[in-house]
């Protein structure tokens, strides 16, 4: 049956048909929908784990238990999962295991542009790279066969333009698989030095065998054109750009298995073309391999290692051609993403900005508090780094900073990797103020449940972490809850906790305005006669408020009725709607 699917849905379909029993993941753009689509199949047990390390280890456990399993994450999630990954390479698998990782060249929704291919190479794990949805589907299925045949986890690497692009997939049926009987195998699964030492040579042998396999495996495709002037080695989405520009007019070696890459097959290809070119986004991974086997390709001498490509880049670099186009003479203002009207993060940020505090931030919708007019953040590094970071900041700067520094972290992010930082604050005693922005959902990645929401991935009721009790147990005595729609109480809470001489946690609690069960209140209205054009309300950066003819106006189609702006109006010009 032919279907138009995004790469992530196609991948999920592949997992399903391969008979996968367990999928555990942590959301992250552009990987999230793999797990969301997998969760639609009742035959697969699916879950959101608190973080990628847990997810990968759950998949490992399922494999150990004899089932086919998978986990999915974005590129930076793989950093978190790197610890199990590297040793999984040694243990190998029982049931086939696949790790899906989605890179984000151009950083559409990410904090860096790292290239996951390096992980496969350094962990010595095979990695497949599909070039469209159809391959995402078929590679996902085939990955399990490789995993079981070579006794290794297999990685599937995609990028935004594979994960979120729809193309046609011819889908099939699920092949149900029996559990492989459990058997205790200490030498295989207990990686202490004695056993691990015996394993490492096996891993090296496996890489040799996989390289042999790569010489003529189904994943790599070679096309020879009549004209032998140019031969391009490429993979993934770049393959599509190359074909878009050149069609069948040049020779192409398409690499579908990025680790390990073949040796002889690439040498043979290089011998048949006059000019050998590598087209790959980000780092010169393919190019380095070609150099290592003695070839002399052109790659990063022509193409950037920054951002993503398109057919236009290939055309420009290799044909020195570009399409004609038109531009406006008027400057077009940017349209950056913003916190939604009614977003519970806005109120607390307003207070922090007003108090001119130093705010160590974290990753989520609330990172948008960094943008004008709030400009409320001082740092954003990686998930969890706000809580660990404020401790270091306060240890370095002492008393003074403790009185005017806080950190903010979302509920999902706190579960992911904020807790350990909080333990450190309590244990190693820094007088830090941690604000948990609890909007009862994982917002940024499109509303996934997490351990604080009380629901699981299917939307069924689940155990709900009590954040107050959790923080208490982690060693924090001062834990309090505020409503971010109530600016005055937020301000006094922050003041009191900054003044306290022990660490504290403030939970700023209000569910995300976009959640189905949250009902917007009637839109507020500005009484134009009372508005003195002081623009105090504009300091919130609410997309529903603007100035027209000198007076504030509230767009009724956007306003969610949170009434935070009303609290800022000294002239009582903003009225609650009816």
């Amino acid at each position, binding site marked *: 049956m032919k279907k138009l699917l995004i790469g992530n849905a196609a991948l999920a379909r592949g997992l399903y048909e391969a008979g996968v029993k367990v999928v555990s993941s942590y959301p992250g753009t552009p990987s999230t929908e793999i797990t969301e689509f997998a969760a639609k199949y009742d035959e697969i047990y699916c879950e959101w784990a608190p973080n990628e390390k847990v997810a990968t280890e759950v998949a490992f456990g399922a494999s150990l238990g004899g089932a086919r399993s998978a986990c999915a994450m974005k590129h930076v999630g793989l950093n978190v999962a790197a610890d199990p990954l590297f040793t999984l390479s040694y243990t190998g698998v029982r049931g086939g295991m696949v790790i899906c990782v989605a890179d984000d060249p151009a950083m559409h929704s990410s904090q860096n542009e790292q290239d996951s291919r390096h992980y496969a190479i350094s962990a010595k794990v095979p990695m497949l790279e599909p070039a469209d949805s159809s391959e995402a589907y078929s590679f996902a299925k085939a990955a399990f066969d490789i995993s079981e045949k070579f006794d290794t986890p297999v990685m599937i690497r995609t990028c935004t333009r594979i994960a979120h*692009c729809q193309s046609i997939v011819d889908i099939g049926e699920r092949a149900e698989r029996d559990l492989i009987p459990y058997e205790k195998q200490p030498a295989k699964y207990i990686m202490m030095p004695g056993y691990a030492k015996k394993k490492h040579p096996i891993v090296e042998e496996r890489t040799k065998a996989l390289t042999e396999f790569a010489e003529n495996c189904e994943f790599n495709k070679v096309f020879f054109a009549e004209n032998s002037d140019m031969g391009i080695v490429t993979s993934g989405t770049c393959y599509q750009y190359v074909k878009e520009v050149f069609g069948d007019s040049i020779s192409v070696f398409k690499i579908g298995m990025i680790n390990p890459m073949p040796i002889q097959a690439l040498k043979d290809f290089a011998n048949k073309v006059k000019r050998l070119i590598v087209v790959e986004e980000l780092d010169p991974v393919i190019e380095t391999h070609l150099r290592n086997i003695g070839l002399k390709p052109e790659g990063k001498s022509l193409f950037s290692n920054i951002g993503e490509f398109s057919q236009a880049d290939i055309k420009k670099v290799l044909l020195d051609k570009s399409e004609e186009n038109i531009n406006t003479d008027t400057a077009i203002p940017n349209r950056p993403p913003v916190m939604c009207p009614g977003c519970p993060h806005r109120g607390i940020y307003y207070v922090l900005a007003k108090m001119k505090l130093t705010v160590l931030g974290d990753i989520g919708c609330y990172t948008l508090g960094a943008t004008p007019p709030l400009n409320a953040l001082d740092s954003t590094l990686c998930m969890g780094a706000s809580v660990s970071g404020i401790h270091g900041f306060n240890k370095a700067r002492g008393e003074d900073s403790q009185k005017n520094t806080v950190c903010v972290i979302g509920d999902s992010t706190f579960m992911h990797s904020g807790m350990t930082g909080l333990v450190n604050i309590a244990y190693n005693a820094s007088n830090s103020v941690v604000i948990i922005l609890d909007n009862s959902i994982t917002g940024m990645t499109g509303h996934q449940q997490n351990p604080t929401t009380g629901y699981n991935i299917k939307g069924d009721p689940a155990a709900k972490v009590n954040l107050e009790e959790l923080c208490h147990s982690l060693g924090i005595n001062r834990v309090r809850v505020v409503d971010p729609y109530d600016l005055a109480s937020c301000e006094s809470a922050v003041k009191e906790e900054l003044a306290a001489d022990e660490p504290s946690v403030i939970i700023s609690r209000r569910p995300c305005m976009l959640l189905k069960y949250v009902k917007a209140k009637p839109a507020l209205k500005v009484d134009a006669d009372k508005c003195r054009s002081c623009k105090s309300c504009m300091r919130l950066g609410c997309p529903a408020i603007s100035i027209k003819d000198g007076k504030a106006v509230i767009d009724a189609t956007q306003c969610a009725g949170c009434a935070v702006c009303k609290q800022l109006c000294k002239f009582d010009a903003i009225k609650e709607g009816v």
Partner: protein
Amino acid sequence: MKTVNIMIVGVGGQGSLLASKLLGHLLVKEGYDVKVSEVHGMSQRGGSVVTYVRFGDKVYSPLVSEGEADYIISFEKLEAARHLPMLKIGGQIIVNTQQIDPMPVITGAAEYPQDVLDEIKAKGVKVDAVDALSLAIEAGSVKAVNIVLIGRLSNYFDFDKQLWLQAIEETVAPKFAQMNKKAFLLGRGEK
């Protein structure tokens, strides 16, 4: 046939995903090779969003580059101007005349260029401007702006009207089908 390139641009949250889903659905049924590139994540929070739809006999790239778009469907005025460089010379813009101020305009750091559509027209670009918001409201929901614009786009293709209506039925939730069909017809200029 030559691949046809369509860009759907707008503000995060305006429903461009449904528009591309509907288009993709119809084009696959008509037997074309199709690629659709969506945006998820950060920019969905009120940022500028872009979706590409490409169809033809064989489509490789899912992206549309500068000067390649045969059609730009813009859900908002400013976004049409922003993506003008993507339009092929001789290409067609279909634009909702709605104005949504971006944050730099709201904060006063930048000004909304009011006459930008006139400027584009003055450059000889084919602009089909439509008050899709009013038509959507007439159809029954402000959320139907996307389908109004798809209705407008349908005027430029030879596909039978029934095919479009059927595609709507097959892609939207049953309880919204009637309203969306109305929005489609209004966009198309029919009652």
